[in-house]
């Protein structure tokens, strides 16, 4: 005979009420773990969308470029040593790919209308190997040649100018010497970007065309690096920073998470929603369990009086009811974990497609990740809630006058 065994028998004795209370705990646990698993998948999709959308795992640039966002003049904080830095990075075993980029602003004209754009000079073939950008093309094709005078326009930008694949347009921009320059490019394709503001201004062209337009002479804005092991971004970034500094390169290294403000905002929003959901579920469990425990205490008043008369200290009586509450919580969580795993398995094989999460261009399949933190956190939330809910009834039971409890009908 132990306190736990007595608690277990009492839980089993009031089967219907225990099922109800345990069911509420189970419901709360399942909701928390499924929400946690779904959020994890959304974060993963958003993270991949951010990295493969062009940010890469790491970016390297002149410190001024990160500080002032590129500066006022063209390539004001350009990376003059880009070739040497890229060569140095390409021998690093952790590095999968180094992409050179020129970011610039200019005007796009078809001779009749002129619209501003945010331009990106890039190596089309290399980008196609790692990034999602080529997959966003909805008309025409992605560029193929690093030096070709071609461009891919955001669909909003193309619509503003009324142009499409095969049309020739002129890019106007200020060179690194401060002179206005123009280059003609053929529109290879039109892409739809997930963020409208970006879609309305996006223009990608080859590194060669951008270099000639800006007279960059091999200088780039930044290097975008992808890694073999995405779980060691921070460590690899720090190691590269130290290595490059030791070798005399004036270059700053930033991780994708530092650069992805949008990702951080969405993540904070989701976490806030998850926290609120947790509070609502905890409140439901708290009320349901407290009600159930109060009824249990009321029904067992004479039993409480008997236990006290036989010499049970009041704290021990309280512990008995707390143990019963805790037991309900543990059983509810165990049932919830089984149910949650089964439901996740079914949902993950259902083939349900979800609308794209913020910042992601394409629909994603519904997938509930198995997140250990959600299971541990869900169980902790439920057990603490059940203990809090049991505490007041347990205290009431312990403080009850023995004589009144024995006379209770």
């Amino acid at each position: 005979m132990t306190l736990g065994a007595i608690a277990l028998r009492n839980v089993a004795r009031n089967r219907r009420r225990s099922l109800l209370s345990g069911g509420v705990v189970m419901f709360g646990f399942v909701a928390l773990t499924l929400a946690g698993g779904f959020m994890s998948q959304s974060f993963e999709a958003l993270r991949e969308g951010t990295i493969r959308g062009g940010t890469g795992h790491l970016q390297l640039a002149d410190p001024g470029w990160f500080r002032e966002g590129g500066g006022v003049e063209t390539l004001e904080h350009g990376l003059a040593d880009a070739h040497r830095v890229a060569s140095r990075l390409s021998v690093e075993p952790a590095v999968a790919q180094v992409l050179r980029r020129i970011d610039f602003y200019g005007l796009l004209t078809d001779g009749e209308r002129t619209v501003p754009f945010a331009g990106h000079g890039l190596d089309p073939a290399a980008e196609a190997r790692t990034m999602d950008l080529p997959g966003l093309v909805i008309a025409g094709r992605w560029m193929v040649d690093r030096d070709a005078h071609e461009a891919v326009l955001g669909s909003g930008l193309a619509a503003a100018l009324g142009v499409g694949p095969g049309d020739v347009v002129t890019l106007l921009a200020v060179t690194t010497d401060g002179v206005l320059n123009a280059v003609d490019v053929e529109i290879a394709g039109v892409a739809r970007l997930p963020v409208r503001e970006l879609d309305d201004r996006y223009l990608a062209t080859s590194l060669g065309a951008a270099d000639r337009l800006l007279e960059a002479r091999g200088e780039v804005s930044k290097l975008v690096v992808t890694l073999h092991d995405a779980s060691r971004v921070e460590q690899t970034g720090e190691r590269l920073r130290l290595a490059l500094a030791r070798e005399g390169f004036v270059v700053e290294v930033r991780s994708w998470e530092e650069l992805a403000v949008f990702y951080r905002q969405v993540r904070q929003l989701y976490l806030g929603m998850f926290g609120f959901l947790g509070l609502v579920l905890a409140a439901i469990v708290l009320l349901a369990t407290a009600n159930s425990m109060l009824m249990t205490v009321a029904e067992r008043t004479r039993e409480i009086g008997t236990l006290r008369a036989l010499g049970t200290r009041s704290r021990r009586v309280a512990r008995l009811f707390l143990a019963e509450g805790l037991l309900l919580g543990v059983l509810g969580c165990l049932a919830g974990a089984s149910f949650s795993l089964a439901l996740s398995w079914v949902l993950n094989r259902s083939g349900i497609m979800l609308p794209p999460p913020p910042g992601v261009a394409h629909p994603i399949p519904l997938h509930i990740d198995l997140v250990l933190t959600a299971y541990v956190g869900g169980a902790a939330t439920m057990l603490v809630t059940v203990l809090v809910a049991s505490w007041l009834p347990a205290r009431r039971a312990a403080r009850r006058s023995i004589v009144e409890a024995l006379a209770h009908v």
Partner: protein
Amino acid sequence: MPTHPAPPLLEGRGLTKTYRLGAVDVPALRSVSVAIPGGDFVVLEGPSGSGKTTLLNLLGLLDRPDQGSVSWEGEPLDGLSEDERSDLRRDRFGFVFQSYNLIPVLSAAENVELPMFLRGMAAAPRRSRARDLLAAVGLEDKGRVRPDLLSGGQRQRVAIARALANEARILVADEPTASLDSVTAGEILDLLLQLHTERGVACIVATHDSRIRARAQRVLALRDGRLEDAVA
């Protein structure tokens, strides 16, 4: 050199208790003094509302008097904390209630074990003693049975075995035969007297049952919260 008589096992002096029912104060006990020597068999009698249960509650440390004091072998118990009173009830008192008050989720043997469990006794001697006690009350074959499957008389036997589990020095019984038919009540009375005689345990029994009264060593009559007389 004068000799001092041994103090009684349990003694109440000037016990007064008033209950409040709504706006009305109802005096349940008015300055009652009673002494129970060790090994005595005392019957409390009186009509309903005369204060029998209140007196048992005060003497059994289940309640505290408004005035007066309770002492054990001459030691006043007024200053004890609730935990100390709980320990005293567990170790020295045995309680038998009219409605048996067995714990429904425990078997007959486990109900008997309960006071020993509360005292921290190891499982093996606890089980052995529970078996012996159930045998002593004639229920050696009912140890595994839950209370709801026992008859009223059997339940009361289990309750008596439980009351003796920690070798109580005194049994406090409130109407122990009131819920039983006359034959069973007679058996329970015989059992109480047998255990009292064999084990030397003092008994204080509140009852309306004239058969118990007839066999008591001492009868205390209560009326309107006052002790009327004592019959040796």
